[in-house]
């Protein structure tokens, strides 16, 4: 029971982190119709910037400054790379973001080396929040969850309660009309791109200390985040939230399950047959955990086709 509780909590918090990264991606997709391949690179840059700033400024200023730096990079990329290729169509935009992702990964390897860096949770934050069945639950995990929830509340209020939010939602839906009503839509897009990048950067700055900070972290996450955005219904913020939690929790639960397809056949007395077949029948669910999100995505596509 306690194990399931831990798995659910871990999954929820991981899901919330996924959401911080995918929120920006789904907003940018809604606006420009382009999946920004470099988005997970913003997550990685957030972690590396925080790691670099931490010795100079301390942990707290580092996780505030790092997202701001990432936002500035995001704005420059939107203004000088994406906007220039916009009129060539989506394929060009996708290629540009892909190229930027590669360049960022190589630059990180060049400056920090092709191995994980020593970015750690600060000692004043590494203590147990509570203990259940003799297992300490790290406070830092809860902290990550809290940051994500606070971010979600902030974006939600910004989008629904302010004039800027109304302009953003309109511009996503009908950019030409929003502009015809006197709103500087290119500026709005640049701002949203910057905020999306900052969110990913914040997620990286916070999570990089807990998980690992290495040059592959962008690629590892990019795939998951794409799945989140697709499963959540491209461009939908609420959908991305649900999909993030769904994927976070299924992943986390599946890892702890020592169950195979053969066991199900075992219930109806076909266990021996299943065992003799082997292969898929005897594979444990836990070893499928990493591929589960993709099953979800395929299921999503299948449902859309049927609908």
């Amino acid at each position: 029971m306690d194990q399931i509780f831990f798995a659910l909590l871990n999954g929820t918090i991981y899901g919330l982190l996924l959401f911080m990264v995918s929120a920006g991606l789904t907003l940018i997709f809604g606006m420009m119709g382009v999946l920004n391949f470099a988005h997970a690179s913003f997550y990685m840059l957030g972690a590396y910037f925080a790691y670099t700033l931490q010795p100079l400024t301390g942990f707290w200023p580092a996780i505030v400054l790092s997202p701001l730096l990432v936002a500035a990079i995001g704005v420059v990329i939107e203004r000088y790379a994406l906007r220039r290729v916009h009129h060539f169509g989506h394929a060009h935009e996708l290629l540009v973001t892909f190229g930027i992702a590669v360049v960022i990964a190589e630059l990180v390897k060049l400056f920090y080396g092709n191995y994980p860096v020593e970015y750690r949770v600060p000692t004043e934050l590494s203590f147990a929040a509570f203990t259940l069945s003799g297992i300490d639950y790290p406070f830092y995990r809860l902290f990550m969850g809290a940051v994500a929830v606070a971010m979600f509340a902030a974006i939600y209020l910004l989008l629904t309660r302010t004039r800027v939010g109304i302009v953003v939602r309109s511009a996503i839906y009908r950019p030409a009309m929003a502009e015809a009503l006197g709103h500087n839509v290119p500026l709005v897009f640049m701002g949203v791109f910057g905020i999306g990048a900052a969110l990913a950067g914040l997620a990286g700055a916070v999570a990089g200390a807990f998980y690992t900070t290495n040059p592959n972290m962008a690629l590892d996450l990019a795939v998951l985040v794409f799945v989140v955005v697709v499963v959540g219904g491209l461009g939908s913020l609420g959908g991305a939230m649900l999909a993030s939690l769904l994927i976070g929790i299924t992943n986390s639960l599946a890892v702890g399950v020592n169950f195979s397809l053969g066991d199900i056949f075992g219930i109806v007395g076909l266990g021996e047959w299943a065992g003799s077949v082997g292969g898929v029948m005897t594979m444990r669910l836990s070893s499928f955990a990493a591929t589960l999100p993709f099953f979800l995505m395929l299921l999503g596509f299948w449902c859309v086709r049927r609908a």
Partner: protein
Amino acid sequence: MKEAILSVQGLHAHYGKSHILHGVSFDVGEGEVVSLLGRNGSGRSTTMKAIMGLVSPSGGRVMLRGHNVAGQRTFTICRSGLAYVPEEREIFFNLTVDENLQMGTQQGAEGATRWTVEEMFAYFPRLKERRNTRAGSLSGGEQQMLTICRSLLGNPLVMLIDEPTEGLAPKIVAVVGEVITDINRQGVSVVLVEQKLTIALKVSNRVCVMGHGQIVFQGTPDALAQTPSVTEEWLAV
């Protein structure tokens, strides 16, 4: 004609390689309603889009109070005093009626007639009843009211209104006609594209007939009535 507030001079526009507008020229006097008439595909809607910068003009000038706005960004053109009510209405379905109206609210050009949300609700009480519902659930007529109000709240000098009565019930068509006359009486100049000739002739001070991306006739509604050859060649279906 009074002094021109909007003067379109030799406007050209292309969609890709096809040449749509071949030097469109007409003036809108201060406080006038000018209708652009013509068959489908004669370039009326494109003229409006080119004036607003939604289609970038490939030649010519759009003088608003003596300043050329052709080639500027659409939002700048709006802020200098032009408002656009598109044929497709372009309501933000994902926002409420109130939020749609907020989207339209702008400082507006200097010296333009000022409009408030309360005045809009006085025109169309139905919108007030539905102010907190999603605009996507409005009927076609209500959407048309909303799109006119939204653009009016930008306090424009000139309003470009494209096919406002298309697909509306006769009763609402009459209301839309009255509203156009009324906002014009309060000082907003109007360029109107309208398929229903009776309405266009009733509300307009002058009409411009378009054909093949050019203006082929300009004059008062009376002058048009006295030149049946124009009606026959360019308007009759």
